[in-house]
């Protein structure tokens, strides 16, 4: 194994650790999206998500709307971080394969 292989493998493992840490953080955040329903002049908000073909819905109290928005936005950011790290891992896998094929 070349030193470059080792560096790439270490980076792959480092990214795996990073993904694990972000996933742990995701566990504590609400899943889904916020939908708004207007009835007359009033707006009602729901936290919705799909599970097993069903849409699960939870009413959000008015004073919880902003905190839910904050956490769902945060969840999106973390999910993107995971995707980015997984993409980096794919690139490393491809690079390692290329090195192996060229040997």
């Amino acid at each position, binding site marked *: 194994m070349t*030193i470059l292989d080792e*560096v790439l493998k*270490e*980076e792959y493992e480092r990214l795996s*650790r990073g993904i694990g*840490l972000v996933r742990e953080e995701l566990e504590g955040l609400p899943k889904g999206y916020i939908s708004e329903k207007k009835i007359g002049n009033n707006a009602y908000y729901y936290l919705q998500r799909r599970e097993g073909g069903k849409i699960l819905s939870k009413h959000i109290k008015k*004073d919880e709307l902003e905190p*839910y928005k*904050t956490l769902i936005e*945060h969840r999106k950011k973390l999910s993107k971080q995971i995707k980015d790290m997984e993409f980096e891992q794919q690139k490393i896998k491809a690079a390692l394969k290329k090195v192996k094929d060229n040997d």
Partner: protein
Amino acid sequence: MINAQVRDFIKTIKLLHDNDCISQIVIIGSWAEHLYIETGVLPAYFATIMTLDLDLLVKNLKYPRGGINLPELAKAEGYQIESERLTGITKLLLPGSLEVEFLLSKRGAGNETALKTNLGVTAQTLRHMEMVLANTIKVDFYGMAIEIPIPEAFVIHKMIINKDRKEKSEKDRASINEMYKHLNKTRFEALLQTLSKRNQKEVERYLDNFIMPALEEVRRIEEAKGKIFAGN
């Protein structure tokens, strides 16, 4: 199990150690970050990728007094020696593994980009290195005492030079912002007070632009969690 790159790092440190020049060197750059984790200085720090560059900051170009020829000694150990054509800057190479570079603190009005040292290498001169030179700790790595900047000094230095780092500035910011979480804030503040007014402003500008917004976001998220989950 140690990998080949770490073995080569140890080989380089041993070369300096066996020739009595390790005490003249402070390890900076990505290897210092790696050492913060490996030696337990910042065990929870999530470091960025290690590069092939091993940056060695030479404390004083006039030491050791009698002078040595480090490139010759390195050559005998299997290193390739490179000398930049324009500047003469010396690099010790272990191809595909390590590129050892020497740096020197630029002081006063001097505008030399490189200076010869008594180690027998020509080192690149850089400004703003006083902070890392004046605030170091010795750590033990595989039985050898190595000097690295204290993490607070490392971060402050990186904050000062960040805007001049061009394409490397974003990668540096990722390291700084992650490392900042693990720093001793009292020590950080105390070191900040030792800087010139100009450099203090540079660090404050960095904190305002890149650290405070992240801290504010963490605060907002924790507050939101508190409001939603408090009753559950």
